[in-house]
C-alpha cells in the first residue's frame, strides 16, 4: 500500500512540474517566470552567499531578540492550538484522495503516514522559501543549510503539534470527557500559563517603569528605541519561570539560530528528539479523522472554485445578506451610483461609509495617544495603501469580468460602466488614505521642533489639498489594473489568487510595475504644471496660497487625465469580447 501512496505522491509532483514547464510556452507565463526569477535574484539570491555576520547596532543583538520574540510567538500559537482545538481533527486530503484512498484497503495509520509525507513536501518547499527570505542581507547569521534545516524543524514541529493537539482533544472527547470538563481543563492550563508569565515578568523585571522611561528617551540613530525594547524582551524571556516555559521553543529554534556548524550539531540532537516525541504522540493518538477530512475537502473545493471564478478570496464562509451601504433610489439618473452600491455591498461592512466616522474617531484617538516620535508610521501605512491598495481592493471590473456579458447588455455607454465600477475601490482607498492623513496631521502637530515655514495655516491648507487630491489619485491608480483586465484579460485572470507558481507571482509583479509606471507618466506632467502654477502664485501670495494654487492645478490636470482614461477604457470595454480571449 505504501508503495502505491508513494507512487501517487511522486507522479503527482512530477506531473505538476511538467504542467508548469509546458505552460511556459505561453508568453504570459514565460514573461512572468522571467520577472519572478529576476525578483528572487535581486532581492534574495544576490545576498545568499553573504558573510553571515549578524548586524549589531546600538548594543543590541538582533539574533537574541528575534530568538526570544519567536519563542514567545510559538508559545502563543501552541496555546491557541489547545485553547481552540478542532473538535473533529481533519487531515488535508483532497477530494480525489478521499475518493480513491478512503475506500481503499489502507489502514488509518497508513493514511496518516501518507498525509504526513505529503505535508513534508510542502514543508520542505516552505523551508527553502523561508530560508531565502530570512537569508536576505544575511542578517541572522549562520549559513543557508543551517537555516533550511532549522526552518524544516520548526515547521514540522508546529504541524505535528497542531495535529497531536487536535487528536488528543478528540480522543478525550471520544473517551467521554464532557465539553465543560474539557474547557475547564484547557482553561485551567491556559490560566496557569498566563499566571506563570505574569509572575515571571513581575519577578524578573520589576522595574518596567524604568524600562518605559528609557524607551521614551530620544536615541541617536535609533528613533524607535528598538535597542531598549529588545534588551527588555531578552531579559524578561531569559529569566525565571518564563525561561522554563519557553524551553521547548528554545530547543526547537536553537538549530535555526546556531551561528556555526558545531553549535548547530549540538542543538540538533535535542530538537530531533522533540520531533520524534511529537511523531510518536501523533501516531499513538490518531483518531477518526475521515468525516472531518471529507467536510474540510468539500469546503476547500468550494473555496478554490470561488477563487478561480474571481470571487472574494479572503472569505471562506458563505456570504450573508447584508444591509445596503446606503438607500438606492430606483430612478434619478446616475446609474454609476448603482455600481458603487453593489460593489460596496460585496465587501466587508467595515469598509462601508457607515464605518468611516467611527474609524476617523478611532484614528484621532490613536493619533493623540501614540508617541510623537512615531508620526511616520501612518505615512508608511499610506504608502502601503497607495502601492498595494489597487491590487487588494478589487471590487471593480476585475472581479466582475466574469459577468462581462451581463454588464454589456445594460443600456449604458462603456465609460459609465467603467466609472461606476471604479467608484467602490476608489472610495475605500480614499477613506483609508484620509484616515492615515488625519493621523499624520494630528501626530505631527504634537511633535516639537520642525522648520519655521511649517506653520499651522500651512499644515491645514496642506491637509485639505492632499485630502482633495487623494480620490483622483486613487482613481488613476485603479484605472491601470482595470485597463489591464480589459486589454489583457488572460493576464488579469491568471493573476488572480488560486493559481500558484513563481510565474504567476511574476505576472503580478509586472502588473504592479506597469501600474507604477503609468502613475508616474500621469502624475509627473500634471505635477510639473502644479509646481509651475504654485511657483507663480508664490511670487505674489503667501506660501499657503501658493500651495493651494498648485493643488488646484494638479486636481484639474488629474481630472482631465482620468476623464480621458475612463472614456478610452469605456470604448475598449464596449469592444471587449471575452469569448475571443484565451483564458488558459
Amino acid at each position, binding site marked *: 500500500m505504501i508503495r502505491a501512496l508513494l507512487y501517487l505522491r511522486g507522479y503527482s509532483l512530477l506531473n505538476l512540474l511538467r504542467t508548469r514547464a509546458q505552460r511556459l510556452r505561453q508568453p504570459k507565463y514565460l514573461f512572468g517566470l522571467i520577472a519572478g526569477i529576476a525578483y528572487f535574484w535581486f532581492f534574495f539570491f544576490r545576498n545568499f552567499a553573504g558573510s553571515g555576520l549578524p548586524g549589531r547596532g546600538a548594543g543590541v543583538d538582533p539574533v537574541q531578540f528575534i530568538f526570544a520574540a519567536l519563542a514567545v510567538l510559538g508559545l502563543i500559537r501552541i496555546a491557541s492550538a489547545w485553547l481552540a482545538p478542532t473538535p473533529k481533527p481533519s487531515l488535508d486530503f483532497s477530494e480525489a484522495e478521499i475518493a480513491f484512498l478512503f475506500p481503499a484497503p489502507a489502514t488509518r495509520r497508513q493514511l496518516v503516514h501518507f498525509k504526513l509525507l505529503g505535508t513534508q513536501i510542502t514543508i520542505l518547499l516552505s523551508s527553502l522559501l523561508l530560508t531565502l527570505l530570512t537569508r536576505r542581507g544575511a542578517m541572522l547569521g549562520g549559513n543557508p543549510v543551517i537555516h533550511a534545516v532549522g526552518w524544516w524543524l520548526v515547521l514540522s514541529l508546529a504541524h505535528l503539534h497542531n495535529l497531536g493537539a487536535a487528536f488528543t482533544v478528540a480522543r478525550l472527547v471520544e473517551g467521554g470527557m464532557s465539553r465543560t470538563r474539557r474547557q475547564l481543563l484547557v482553561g485551567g492550563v491556559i490560566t496557569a500559563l498566563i499566571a506563570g508569565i505574569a509572575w515571571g515578568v513581575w519577578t524578573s523585571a520589576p522595574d518596567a517603569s524604568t524600562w518605559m522611561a528609557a524607551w521614551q528617551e530620544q536615541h541617536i540613530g535609533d528613533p524607535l528605541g528598538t535597542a531598549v525594547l529588545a534588551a527588555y524582551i531578552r531579559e524578561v524571556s531569559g529569566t525565571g519561570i518564563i525561561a522554563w516555559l519557553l524551553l521547548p521553543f528554545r530547543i526547537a529554534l536553537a538549530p535555526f539560530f546556531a551561528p556555526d556548524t558545531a553549535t548547530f550539531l549540538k542543538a540538533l540532537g535535542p530538537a530531533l528528539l522533540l520531533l520524534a516525541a511529537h511523531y510518536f504522540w501523533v501516531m499513538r493518538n490518531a483518531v477518526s479523522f475521515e468525516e472531518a477530512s471529507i467536510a474540510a475537502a468539500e469546503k476547500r473545493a468550494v473555496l478554490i472554485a470561488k477563487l478561480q471564478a474571481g470571487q472574494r478570496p479572503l472569505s471562506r464562509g458563505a*456570504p450573508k445578506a447584508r444591509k445596503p451601504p446606503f438607500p438606492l433610489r430606483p430612478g434619478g439618473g446616475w446609474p454609476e451610483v448603482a455600481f458603487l452600491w453593489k460593489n460596496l455591498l460585496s465587501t466587508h461592512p467595515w469598509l462601508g461609509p457607515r464605518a468611516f466616522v467611527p474609524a476617523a474617531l478611532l484614528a484621532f484617538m490613536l493619533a493623540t495617544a501614540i508617541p510623537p516620535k512615531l508620526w511616520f508610521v501612518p505615512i508608511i501605512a499610506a504608502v502601503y495603501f497607495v502601492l498595494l491598495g489597487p491590487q487588494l481592493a478589487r471590487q471593480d471590473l476585475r472581479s466582475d469580468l466574469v*459577468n462581462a456579458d451581463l454588464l454589456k*447588455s445594460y443600456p449604458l*455607454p462603456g465609460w459609465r460602466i467603467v466609472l461606476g465600477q471604479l467608484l467602490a475601490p476608489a472610495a475605500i482607498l480614499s477613506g483609508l488614505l484620509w484616515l492615515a492623513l488625519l493621523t499624520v496631521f494630528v501626530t505631527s502637530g504634537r511633535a516639537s521642533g520642525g522648520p519655521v515655514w511649517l506653520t499651522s495655516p500651512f499644515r491645514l491648507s496642506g491637509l485639505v489639498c492632499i485630502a482633495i487630491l487623494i480620490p483622483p489619485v486613487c482613481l488613476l491608480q485603479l484605472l491601470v489594473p482595470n485597463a489591464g483586465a480589459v486589454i489583457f484579460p488572460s493576464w488579469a485572470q491568471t493573476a488572480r489568487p488560486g493559481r500558484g507558481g513563481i510565474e504567476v507571482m511574476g505576472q503580478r509583479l509586472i502588473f504592479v510595475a506597469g501600474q507604477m509606471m503609468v502613475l508616474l507618466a500621469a502624475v509627473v506632467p500634471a505635477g510639473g504644471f502644479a509646481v509651475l502654477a504654485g511657483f507663480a502664485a508664490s511670487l505674489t501670495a503667501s506660501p499657503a496660497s501658493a500651495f493651494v494654487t498648485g493643488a488646484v492645478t494638479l486636481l484639474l490636470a488629474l481630472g482631465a487625465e482620468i476623464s480621458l482614461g475612463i472614456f478610452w477604457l469605456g470604448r475598449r470595454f*464596449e469592444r471587449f469580447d471575452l*469569448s475571443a480571449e484565451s483564458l488558459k
Partner: protein
Amino acid sequence: MIEVEGLTKRYGDFTAVNQLSFTVRPGEVLGLVGPNGAGKTSTLRSVAGIIPPNGGTIRIAGIDLAADPVGAKRRLAFFPDEPRLFDYLTVSQHLAFVARIYGVVDHEEIAAPLLEELELANKADALPGELSRGMKQKLAIACGLLHAPAVMFFDEPLTGLDPLGIRRMKDSILRRAHEGAAIVLSSHLLHLLEEVCSHVLILKQGTKIADGTIAEVSAQFAHGESGVSLEEIFMRATGGSET
C-alpha cells in the same frame, strides 16, 4: 421587432457568423439551432449588443444597435445559459440594482407580481448562494423582465432545469410572446423548438441553412416524405456532425 441584415462575426481568421439575415416580428419566437460551433451564441451575443459584429446591421424595436446602442439595449433583455448573478446581492437587492440601471422608477410595483409569478416572493432576502439552480434562473429572468423589454434573447434557456422548471420556462416564454415580445432562443433541444417556437433558423458553420416556420423548414428537407421528425430534419439539414 428584430431585424438583422448581413451579420458577420469573425474571431481573427475564423468566421463564426457569415452574412446572416433574419427578422423576428412581435409575438414570434425564433429558434436558433445548429451543431456545436455553428455560431448560435456568437449570433445571440452580437444581436444583444454584447460583442461588436464585424459587419451587418441590427435593429432592435426599430433602433439601430450600432448607431444607438444604449437606446436599443433599453428595449431588449438577454438571458445567458448560466444565470449571471452577483454573489452578495439578495433577490430584492438584485431587482433594486437593475431598476437603477434601467431607470425603472416604480420597480417595486412591477417586481412584486413578478416575484409572485416566478415563485420567488418568499426568497426576497436570500442570496444567490442560497437558491437552487432553477431559482437562480428565475431571478435572472425577473431581472430581465423588470424593464418590460420588447425583445428577448435566450441562450440555452433550459440548461440545468428540472422537468417542472422546464415546463414553467416554456410557459413564461410563450406568455411573453403572446404579450407581444419578439423572442429569439438558441437550443439543442429540438422538442423545445416544436413546443415553443413559431419559427426556426438552422445555422451551420456560421451560415444560414434554413429559415422559416417549422412547417416550412420541415417541408424543405422532407423531400416529399410525410411524418419526418424534426430530429431527422435537423440531421438532414446539418449533416449531423459538429462543425
